[in-house]
Structure formats: structure tokens, C-alpha cells
């Protein structure tokens, strides 16, 4: 079995505020195997970007990993200093396509100059070689090579996004963290970029953490995945296992709520309620208030990781995970009678 390139072990992350702290991530555990593409999905505000930021020491100033271990290539990094992150993790090892990528470009510098700077600090590429590499990558992400010397503001939202993707690939990192990399893109471009990202595996040893709210992207492009809800990991496993046998109620309801263009007339299930704001100790299942199957035990402690019988490395953090196949039977069966408008026409 491949060694994990990244491991989260019972990690808590908090943001200090004037009032109570925000407990953004609680008891998070998962591992990304070397060479795997790993998807992280979950509701807005559930802590996805916080997890991404913590890996490269990029939490906001008021944020902190308060307990647990984050290991990159076996080495603990949660307590790294700024310079240790720069030396051992950022840039050449791990590159990030940040969610706010539209303002991660330097507005007063031509893109070509930004690439030359990056090459100067992190590689021994000459200026012409750096520009060649940028042209090549622009081509890959569907930007015209003639626009490498534009300023960021001359690009549309999606063009800036693609420029960032090109920059993230520039140094051939071993782990790419892509936080909503294609939300600003149309589906055709998204398709082409994901296709390209899938092909990177052939060029060098690369793993990926793909953060998105679009579960279809994960199903189509990842090997394994985690579903998050309200600062807790709800379920992890291979994408096939999580799709075929979801065992956390949020993962189950999420799949029913997902629009599928094959069936535009299908009623979409809505997940009622909102995740709680996490200001006090999180010693309960954060889905309990929204869960149709909650029982008192769900509020009596954070649910333990429960292996799903018969599957390898498939875990659900739900006290009733073992009963879910019966409790949620009617949610789990997939309707077969509706016909896809894509396959049969009409």
C-alpha cells in the first residue's frame, strides 16, 4: 500500500475572536495516499478552507491548530514556524490554488514578471526558460500565449482563475491543494482542466486535495474523499464506497439533494436547517439538529469513527452508522424508472 503523503490526526482548529472562539475544525482525521486524488466536500462554512490553509501554515492570524497532528510525508508540521513552512512545505512540495485566487495575483505586476520572479526564487530556470514554461502552461489552461504579459485586471474572472492554476503547476509540486479551482469556470473549461489535472499523474508523482462543493467533480475525478459537516469529518472512503454505501446521514441526504442534469424534472431534496455556529466545545454530532435519525446519544459526545462493515478504509463518524442501511433504506435506493434526457433523447 502506498504511504500517505498527508495525514490529519484528530485535528482541532480555532479562530480567536472578540467574543467566543470559532471552533472551525474539530477532531478531523483523514489521510491522502501518495499518488491519490482526494476530494473534500461539504457545506459552505464547514471548515474546508481552514483545513487547506492549515497545511501550508496559511491560517489567518487569529487561527491556530490547537491540538492533533498534521503530518506531511510522515513529518509533523502543525507546529512549524514560518521559515520551516517556507523551507519544507510551501511552493516546491505543496502548492495551493486558493479559493480567493482572484486576489492572489499581484495587481501591479505583469503575469510574465510574476512567473519570472517565482522561477528566480524557487528554480534555476533562466528568464527565457521561465517564460517558455509559462507559455506552455497558458496553453494548457486555454489562455492565449500572447497574453502572458497582460496585467491581472485585463483578465476576466475565469481567466485569472486559469492563470492561477498555471502558476500552481509551475513548480511541479508533489501535493496540489485546489480550493474550489473551477467554480469560476464554465463546464467546458472545467472539463478540460480536470482532464489535464488527471493527466498530471503521468508526468510526475503528484497527489491532490480537491476542495469543492460540487460532489460530481469529486465523483468524476478523485480516488477517495471526505464529506464534512459543521467542522467535523462525517465520512471518508473511496469515492465508489461513499457513493454506493454512504453511512453518515449528511452524506446520504447530500446525495439526494444533488442536481443531476440527466433528470431535470426530479424534485430536489433540501436538507433542512443550518449547521450550528461552533462557539462552545464541540462534544456532540454537529448534524444532530438536522438529522432525521438523531437520538440522545448523538448529543452526548462527538461520534467516534465507525468502520463500515465489508469495506476497507471506509469510516463514518455517526453513532448509528451501523444501522443506517436499514434506517435510511428508502433514501438509499436509487430510483431507476426516471429516464435520462441525455441518453434516450428528450
Amino acid at each position, binding site marked *: 500500500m502506498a504511504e500517505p503523503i498527508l495525514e490529519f490526526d484528530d485535528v482541532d482548529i480555532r479562530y480567536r475572536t472578540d467574543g467566543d472562539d470559532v471552533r472551525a475544525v474539530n477532531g478531523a482525521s483523514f489521510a491522502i495516499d501518495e499518488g491519490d486524488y482526494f476530494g473534500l466536500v461539504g457545506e459552505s462554512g464547514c471548515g474546508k478552507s481552514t483545513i487547506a490553509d492549515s497545511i501550508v501554515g496559511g491560517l489567518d492570524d487569529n487561527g491556530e491548530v490547537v491540538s492533533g497532528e498534521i503530518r506531511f510525508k510522515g513529518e509533523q508540521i502543525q507546529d512549524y514556524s514560518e521559515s520551516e513552512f517556507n523551507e519544507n512545505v510551501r511552493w516546491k512540495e505543496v502548492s495551493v490554488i486558493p479559493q480567493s485566487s482572484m486576489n492572489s495575483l499581484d495587481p501591479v505586476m505583469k503575469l510574465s514578471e510574476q512567473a519570472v520572479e517565482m522561477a528566480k526564487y524557487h528554480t534555476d530556470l533562466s528568464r527565457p526558460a521561465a517564460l517558455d514554461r509559462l507559455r506552455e502552461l497558458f496553453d494548457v489552461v*486555454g489562455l492565449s500565449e500572447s497574453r502572458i504579459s497582460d496585467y491581472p485586471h485585463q483578465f476576466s474572472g475565469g481567466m485569472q482563475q486559469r492563470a492561477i492554476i498555471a502558476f500552481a503547476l509551475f513548480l511541479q509540486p508533489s501535493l496540489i491543494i485546489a480550493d474550489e479551482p473551477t467554480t469560476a469556470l464554465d463546464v467546458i473549461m*472545467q472539463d478540460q482542466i480536470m482532464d489535464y489535472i488527471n493527466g498530471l499523474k503521468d508526468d510526475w508523482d503528484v497527489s491532490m486535495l480537491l476542495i469543492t462543493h460540487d460532489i460530481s467533480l469529486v465523483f468524476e475525478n478523485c480516488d477517495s474523499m471526505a464529506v464534512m459537516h459543521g467542522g467535523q469529518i462525517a465520512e471518508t472512503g473511496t469515492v465508489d464506497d461513499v457513493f454506493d454505501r454512504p453511512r453518515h446521514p449528511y452524506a446520504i441526504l447530500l446525495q439526494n439533494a444533488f442536481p443531476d*442534469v440527466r433528470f431535470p424534472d426530479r424534485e430536489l431534496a433540501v*436538507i433542512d436547517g443550518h449547521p450550528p*455556529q461552533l462557539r462552545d466545545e464541540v462534544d456532540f454530532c454537529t448534524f444532530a439538529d438536522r438529522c432525521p435519525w438523531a437520538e440522545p446519544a448523538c448529543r452526548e459526545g462527538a461520534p467516534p469513527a465507525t468502520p463500515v462493515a465489508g469495506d476497507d478504509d471506509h469510516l463514518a463518524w455517526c453513532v448509528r452508522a451501523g444501522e443506517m442501511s436499514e434506517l435510511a433504506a428508502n433514501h438509499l435506493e436509487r430510483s431507476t424508472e426516471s429516464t435520462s434526457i441525455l441518453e434516450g433523447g428528450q
Partner: protein
Amino acid sequence: MSDGAPVLELRSLEKHFDTTSGITETIRNRLVGEGPKLVRAVDDLNLTLAENQVQGVIGESGCGKTTLLRTIIGLYDPTGGEMRFHGRPTSEFTKDEWKEFRRHVQIVFQDPFNSLDPKFSVRRTLAEPLEIHGIDYDRTDIEEMLESVGLTPASQYIQQFPNQLSGGEKQRVAIARALITEPDVILADEPASMLDVSTQAEILNLLNELTDEFGVSMVYISHDLSTVSYICDHINVMYLGRIVEKAPTRALLADPKHPYTQALIRSIPIPDPHYDREQATIGGEPGDPIDMPEGCRFKNRCPERMDVCDETPLDVAPDGDGDREVACHLYYDHEERAGAEPKPAASDGGERP
């Protein structure tokens, strides 16, 4: 304002950017006899927004969607064509009329990371437009608005600053800011792109309610066809500055006509790891609004390309369906059309000086 006129009418609207950078390039271009480097971001675009209607605009990155909205709201001056608001040309607007216009027409900007002022708390962000337009309010109004975009309990968010909010939370604050002045027209630029399905459904329901119950009209930009279909009556597919297909939503999804629309629909990912989606066959290079091809702008990527595609296609009603329009040579008999009045060969070719 003339009654019965559509809320908003765009006729052959055009917004070109001159990207010639600096004097030396200008001189060089003169010497070699080249025109300025024009980005034809919006080019010969027609759109009518009726009261209470939601017009969706979809299209690839860089095709001009944001430029279109910014031109409508008056942030850019159009370089050609005409824009009418309740029948009155905006080019004739007085200062007061612009002020009135800005109160009634609100925009949700595409990128909440850039469009929220980092120094403003959520409370101040929402209070600002109310103050600008002299509308009375109290804290409850702001809290109610926040809760209706799913930021509950509002008291937990009201003091936060943008950098303390997640991407989707920022996006909802941006929506709340646009809605709080109770506009008649909303221009929404990818307003739900960062939201998960459940939160998205909530926002879409809220927008639907506004349009159904309060007569609000909306131009809704998105590249996500599955959400567009929930909210829009009509969909306009934009390609390189021009609308290449318009149709009622359901008709467009079930039976797309333009080869580009067909590719768009085939590129939507499917939430099922066992489903082997056939990928769209159109080639790489997205359109470049600087060097636009002559004739159909999609021709270089189109699997159906014919010789006639070197000429600009007319907007025609496919299968005689008066509700739809498509700009593609596949859908009309050219001989029969030859007699019909030619559309001004428009801005497509290189005929311009």
C-alpha cells in the same frame, strides 16, 4: 417612462476595450498600419428583459458576461448600440435619472473576495446602501436580511469582517447587500457559485420568491446550467460577445440546437462515479475576443462546420418555433433566406476600419 415597455432593452449593444498599451505601441501600430488592439468583449448583443422575468445568461469564461452587466449598470460606457430602461434610452439620462436608476437596479458582483470592503463589518456593509439612498432602517432589518440568505443566527455574523467569513458566507453577504434596498431589477453575476447545493437551493428559492411575488426582474449570470434551470424562465447562451442561442429553459436543456450549447450540456459532470460520461468533442482553444474569426465565431471549434460558416449566421427560429432563436447555419435554408432582408453584416467580419 412609457408604459408597457420592457424593463430593460439592449439593442446591438457593444463594449470594446482598447488594450494597446502605451504610446510606443500606438505609434508602432500606426507605422505598420494596424488598428488598435481591440477586445470585443460585448459585440452586437440583443436582450430584452420584461417585468417579472428572469433572463439567464450562460457562456464560457471570458465571453463577456461581466462586461455586459457592468455596461448595463453604467460602470462602462457602451462603445455602440443602445440601452433602454423602461423605454427611455440611458444615453439621455440626467444625473437624477442615473441616481434613480442605481437605486432600482442592483448588482451582485461576481467575486465576493474583491467586492466587499474589508474594512466594513457585515452590519456596515448592509447599512451603507440604505444610507446612500436615504432609506430608514434599524438593526432588525439587517438581521432579517441576513437570515433570509441563510446566515443564521444573524447576531453571530453581524460584527464579522469579510476576512472572517468563508467564501460562501461572503457571497451571501454580497447578495444581502444587493437585496436590502428592495430593487426592481437585480443583475446577478454568478451569485451562488461558491455555495453547496443546499444553501444554493435556499438562495434560489429566495430569489424566486422575489421575482414571483414582488415583480422583481433579473438578469442571472452563471455557468452552471443545473442551477440556472431552477431560476430562469429563459436562457441566453453567449459566445464571444454575442448571444448565439436563446430559448425557454426547459426547451434549451432538453433540445439544445447550437453546437456550442450542445457541448455545454454534455460537459456537465454527473454525480455518479459509475457513470461514464461521454466528453464533449469540441477542441481546446476558447474564443479570443481580440482575434475573432470571420463568420460564425464558433466555427474553429465546431464539429458541424460547413463552408457557409465563414459567413455570419442569422438569428433564426429553429423548426419555426417562435419562442427560440439560434445563430447557426444548420438551422435555415439559405436559398429561401437569400431574398429576406439581410441583417446588417454586423460586427462580425473584419470590415471595420
